[in-house]
């Protein structure tokens, strides 16, 4: 008598192939489910998917727009990668991004009569410091009170949003702005230089690429990076080796805060050019997906942030072309993460067909001493 069933079985060692294939599989499943969704909404799925994923990149302008969105995603994701490597589950890149934008805007508004672009240096630094300070709250709560960083960072995200709303309705509101909740438009010297005058893409994309290379070097070549990795992989081994857990936690969180802050300030001094209530379409959250989709690998991170950037453009495109809601962006991002987490199960497990013989007699085989 045989009884056949499917069973998950632990692999003897993690599959490298699956680790690489899992994101691709997740993207494929997302596309299939997205297609079904479009079909249910009464659209030709292939045409809709084309509109969502391909048509935004049909010209150079589209690619430049993609770069604008890749820059903040890449900066946030790079910082998050470092935290996640240490198993510090920082969900607060969004809040750190917003605070960076808020702090940077305040600085930019102090230089309304600046004649040289050098004022960008203090503006950028203020933005970074603001994000860093926001992350410092989490680091302090974690190292002193063992407060769970997932909770504190999420709560701080909401506080950051409200701080931003308060600022645009209050102290940073443009006095000549007809009472709109917006700051004054920043002057040209406080805006990030454009790479090409025909497009909106600015030098923040270089910040992102530089950050990826710098953090990757740090993690793979330096003693600090090694310690962060050990801490994340095996906290007991880190204690055995005598690594300073609290210091490493501070380091990872502050670095992430500064990078997310830089992303925030680059956004207000870049494509937006002023402080508005909605400076982030959720870059800090999307960056979490980028980190996992990119396998915490520098090249993977670049590609993953391009894909996530595309979901923002695709959402706008289907809204314009097909009158579908822009919130499809969030739906696609969510599906992507959902399928990725599901597929990741296959890295350490495999599906096997079990043929079970009923009434099997078990008999002890080899005699080995119990360990």
């Amino acid at each position: 008598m045989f009884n056949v069933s499917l069973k998950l079985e632990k692999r003897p060692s993690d599959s490298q192939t699956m680790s690489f294939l899992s994101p691709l599989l997740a993207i494929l499943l997302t596309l299939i489910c997205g297609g079904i969704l479009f079909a249910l909404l009464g659209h030709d799925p292939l045409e809709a998917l084309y509109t969502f994923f391909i048509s935004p990149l049909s010209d150079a302008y589209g690619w430049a727009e993609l770069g604008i969105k890749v820059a903040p995603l890449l900066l946030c994701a790079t910082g998050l990668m470092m935290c996640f490597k240490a198993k510090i589950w920082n969900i607060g890149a969004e809040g750190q991004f917003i605070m960076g934008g808020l702090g940077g805007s305040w600085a930019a508004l102090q230089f309304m009569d600046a004649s040289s672009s050098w004022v960008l240096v203090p503006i950028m630094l203020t933005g970074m410091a603001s994000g860093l300070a926001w992350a410092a709250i989490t680091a302090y709560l974690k190292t002193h009170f063992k407060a769970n960083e997932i909770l504190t960072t999420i709560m701080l995200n909401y506080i950051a949003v409200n701080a931003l709303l308060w600022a645009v309705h209050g102290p940073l509101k443009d006095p000549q702005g007809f009472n709109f909740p917006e700051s004054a438009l920043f002057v040209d010297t406080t805006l990030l230089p454009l790479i090409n005058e025909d497009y909106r893409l600015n030098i923040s994309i270089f910040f992102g690429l530089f950050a990826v290379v710098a953090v990757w070097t740090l993690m793979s070549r330096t003693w600090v990076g090694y310690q962060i990795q050990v801490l994340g992989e095996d906290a007991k081994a880190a204690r055995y080796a005598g690594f300073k857990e609290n210091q490493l936690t501070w380091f990872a969180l502050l670095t992430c805060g500064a990078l997310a802050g830089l992303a925030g300030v680059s956004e207000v001094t870049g494509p937006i050019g002023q402080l508005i209530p909605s400076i982030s379409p959720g870059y800090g959250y999307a960056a979490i997906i980028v980190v996992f989709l990119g396998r915490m690998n520098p090249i993977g991170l670049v590609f993953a942030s391009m894909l996530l950037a595309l979901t923002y453009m695709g959402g706008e495109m289907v809204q314009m072309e097909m009158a579908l809601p822009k919130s499809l962006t969030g739906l696609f991002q969510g599906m992507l993460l959902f399928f990725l987490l599901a597929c990741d199960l296959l890295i350490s497990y495999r599906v096997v067909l079990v043929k079970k013989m009923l009434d099997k007699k078990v008999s002890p085989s080899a005699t080995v001493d119990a360990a």
Partner: protein
Amino acid sequence: MARLALTGITKAYPGCIANQDVSLEVKAGEIHALLGENGAGKSTLMKIIYGVVKPDAGTFLWEGQAITVNGPSHARSMGIGMVFQHFSLFETLTVAENIALGLPKEEGRDLAALSKRIKEVSQHYNMGLDPERYVHTLSVGEQQRVEIVRCLLQDIKLLILDEPTSVLTPQEVKGLFKTLNTLSEEGCAILFISHKLDEVTELCHGATILRNGQVSGDCNPQQVTSADIARMMVGNDTPLSEDYVKAEGKEAVLSIRELDYRSDDPFASPLHKLSLQVKAGEILGIAGVAGNGQDELMALLSGEERCEKKAINLLGEDIGDLPPGLRRKLGFAFVPEERLGRGAVPDMSLQQNALLSSSHLGLINKGLINFAKVSEYAQNVITKYKVKSAGLSAQAKSLSGGNLQKFIIGREIEQNPKLLVCSHPTWGVDIGASILIRHALIDLRDRGAAILVVSEDIDELYQISDRICAICHGDLSPIKKTQEVNIETLGQWMAGQFGDESAGPTEGEPAYV
């Protein structure tokens, strides 16, 4: 007719046989001890009785009838109760609420009636327990009472206790024994799992000793000594061979002075005024049954836990409050008990793992890792200690226990430490690797290093130690030359009977007063 009679119980896991042909009989009203070293198969046997694990072969007679236990709830309905070593209580609920959770619906619903029964039962058995109190306000001993009362509320016929005294104060132990005696007088059979031989001889009417998954002896603890039982636990037949020449230590490298320690962890064992010296060119062995303070002593020596600065002295420097890294710079090296998940990072390569504890050997230059040097160091360890692996990039977790242990021992010894502390150096390691590891330790000793070895393996300690002692309940026995200590004496020491000598320091040890 025995209440519980097991015959020929066998349970095999892939790669090891946890229980082989185990027979055990417990009569009504008997307090029966189940003894054995770590890994002897006690837990597996317990789980078989409680229905958590199904045996591959053997018969299970319950009051004369052959049955199969289908699971813990079935076992409970038969009248078998079990108190695990680590409790399963919700701290934010009251005693009564916790107990109600484990009861069938109809019984658990009426909290007032339940509280009354809890009071009655706990008073009857001399265990003061207030059903209204929240569990987080209870001491560990009181929490254990909750677990026991939970078992007693049903019609209990066999109570299994897994190392119940490990978390109790001596007074609480006395109280527990009183309760157990009352229960036994009422005809309840008790299976008492313990490491502590003195308690077994005090309390139990019968004992079964397990070794390597097999029964190595049955005895009546009232009629034999603790030392006899210890002998059965560690084995009679294994020759206590003496292959290595014993050495005489020179100047002291490590001095521990009156080390008192109590951890926040209720499951940890406190240390009492522990003093010892390890000298250059000798191996000091500390015997003892697990859980008597060895882990705490190791963590204090390695710097993972800190104590008063002056309590630990390494080569003239007080290091009690120093972190691990600074201790290593002074010539300290440490092989922990856990290979994977402390001594080595499971998912990292051997190359990366080589760096874990040896960063002070010039492998780091201005914060940058010198990978060439790290590789060289790791390769040297792999070659010299015959570590079988897929190379430098092999993950630590892909190695067999013996090979990973050789790697870790090699990594520590190649730092040329002045003091090497090893916890269970050959635990769960095959014979070939054990020989290589012991040989490496002797070599290091002959090069003039001081070595401290903690082990449960008595044969090993006799083989490699130049001086030997035992730890029990956080107290250290006298330290003597290995040749002068016979196994009976060592067995007594392991049971905490240090004789008259325990009062003062011995054999040239300076008195720290």
